[in-house]
């Protein structure tokens, strides 16, 4: 890693290249957990760092870098959803390998069935898809990544009470979806 890249020296002690190497994977995972598609996640990450680079002179180190990047990632993803909703793609038939309609979890699996790791991941992915954008981000940050409520409020730029109520709503929604599986999970 080149720590002496003058191109990326934007703030004393804060090197953009280092930021990419340190935070790139985290940002990618956030994007992937939000959109559920690895190729789209890469596009989102690219866009995130482009935007971050453009505005890096405004980032004065008052908050943590990842908060700044997470906020950009979330906004980019939200805008993509809005755009897709307004402009559905026209095609006679599209056999895209990662484009699948929402497939609700299987009803009541056998009581003695133990969920394998991949099944669990698939279940989590489906559950996340059922949440609205803000709820999805909160669940990812809180329950998957273990971030604090404060960090979530900074990313979403909202009040603590809003985060609490959205988190509760998201958890309630997940309880409904996962109720057939909860015996196994416990």
């Amino acid at each position, binding site marked *: 890693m080149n720590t002496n890249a003058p*191109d*990326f020296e*934007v*703030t004393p002690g804060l090197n*953009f*290249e280092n930021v*990419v*190497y340190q935070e*790139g*994977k985290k940002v*990618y*995972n956030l994007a*992937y*957990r939000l959109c559920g598609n*690895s*190729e789209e*996640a*890469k596009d989102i*990450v*690219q866009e995130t*760092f*482009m935007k971050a*680079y*453009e505005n*890096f*002179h405004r980032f004065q180190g008052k908050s943590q870098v990842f908060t700044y990047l997470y906020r950009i990632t979330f906004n980019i993803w939200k805008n993509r959803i809005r755009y897709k909703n307004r*402009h559905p*793609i*026209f*095609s*006679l*038939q*599209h*056999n*895209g*390998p990662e484009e699948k309609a929402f497939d609700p979890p299987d009803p009541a699996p056998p009581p003695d069935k133990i969920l394998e*790791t991949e099944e*669990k*991941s698939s*279940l*989590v992915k489906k559950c996340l898809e059922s949440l609205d954008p803000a709820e999805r981000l909160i*669940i990812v940050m*809180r*329950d*998957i990544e*273990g971030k604090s*409520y404060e960090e979530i409020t900074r990313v979403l730029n909202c009040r603590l009470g809003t985060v*609490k109520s959205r*988190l*509760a*709503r998201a*958890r*309630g929604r*997940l*309880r409904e979806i*996962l*109720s057939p599986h*909860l015996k196994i*999970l*416990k």
Partner: protein
Amino acid sequence: MNKNFCKNQEVLSAYLDGMLPEERKSRVKGHVESCPECSQIIREMEAIRRLLAEYPEKDPGVGFETAVLNQVKERGLPVSFRNWSRRISYSLGGLALFLIILVLVQRPSIQPPLEKDKSLELSRMVTAEKENSTLPATKPEISDKSVVLPGEVYPDQKSVKLKTEKQEVKQPELASETAVKKETARGGIALKSTDGPAIHPAPQNIVIRNKKDWEGIWLTQNLTLPLPKVDFRKQMVIAVPSIQNGQEYQVIKTEEKENLTIVYYQVIPLNKDTAQTILPPYQIKIVNTQPIVEFQQVK
């Protein structure tokens, strides 16, 4: 039972995360221990939280960060300089763009990209009757092999390059009603007729295998929709003209076989008396990539 928070998901969720004030926390704790429904909710939330916490990280792949940095560098975005110098740069950029547009407007009219763009792969039906054929402004070259220029090359994609051989444009002939001339080549296009009466002149079908050509043909569609995403490592785009040679062509279906895709289409003669439908120039179909594509007319 305390009605304020019994079965209240928001309170129980905050309690689970230790986000309640101390006084309230002890009251809720006391209640949860005695209320079967609330303790059930807490247990379920805990189970869900455990499930979510186990969700593994995904690896973006080797060299991901380097690729991101390279993209940022290529863009050469200005970073830490003052607002006024950015304004000047943007103004100069705007002025340059304005001059370019001005120059373009002054030039003679530009032909549609498709006719001049020889990088598109064209199929040619040689049995078409001369008077029914509508040749593009620039005569396409007919060869036994189709023209395919290398598109964007992905690490796992074998680039397809074929040589073009200039040949004379032959006049189409119909030896019999079922006469057919077959053109098949790797990456090329074959045509086979079905059993039946007259053979209609085949449309100028196109197979697209790279993003540049895809963008080009999408422009001709005159739609305000965004370019559909195609992964050219695994997919290709079939484009069949909607109307040509006084006929309307309609894609019925596509069939995949080993190393071969067959596109079935039918012909609908245009009738002056029927209402005209405004169609985009091409019917587009995105399919899995195959080296050979055949176009078959059906009844």
